[in-house]
């Protein structure tokens, strides 16, 4: 099936989960990445089980923050 990842159309296997996509895309430090699917943020707890659908749009966003400490 085709999905859009970070603005690029990609062919992935049917039923791929968010966690599998993170691995396939070789996302660096995935523990600090927020994932949106069709502009809705996915719960981290759902990454292993949530399957993507044909036509979904996925974005990976790094947590960005800091502090004085």
């Amino acid at each position, binding site marked *: 099936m085709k999905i859009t990842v970070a603005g690029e159309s990609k062919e992935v296997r049917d039923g791929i989960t968010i966690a599998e996509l993170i691995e396939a895309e070789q996302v660096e430090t995935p523990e600090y990445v927020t994932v949106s699917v069709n502009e809705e*943020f996915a719960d981290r707890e759902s990454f292993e089980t949530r399957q993507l659908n044909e036509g979904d749009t996925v*974005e990976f966003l790094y947590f*960005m*923050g*800091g*502090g*004085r400490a």
Partner: protein
Amino acid sequence: MRITIRQQDYDKMLAHALKERPNEACGLIAGVDREDGVREIRFVYLLTNTDASNEHFTLDPREQLEAVKDMRANGWKPLGNWHSHPESPSRPSEEDKRLAYDSKASYLILSLMEEGNPVLHSFHVENGISEAEELEIAREEE
């Protein structure tokens, strides 16, 4: 790494940082990595510091998503982020380094510590080690 920011984008960043004092201000930078090796900032995004703190910042993820879509629409790539240090120097704190997860990003820090003398530096951070980048504020050509 040499990185350039236009004067107007620097001015915009500074105005926002001054307005947000005493809290830290933050945002994203977008542009292009040119073939000559220069990283050229074409746009500065002003985002909400969801921590609303003078000691911490966190970019609003919803605004981050909107900014990334805007970058793509304009043909720019995400180059990193910026934040202000209202009361400390322009260098990454230990927490800044610990939370710098993207080794390809440039991290700009604008210090407002000295009244009337803002200082902006850019850093590469990898494995908890920061290294200053050569930052140039470029005046607009007539």
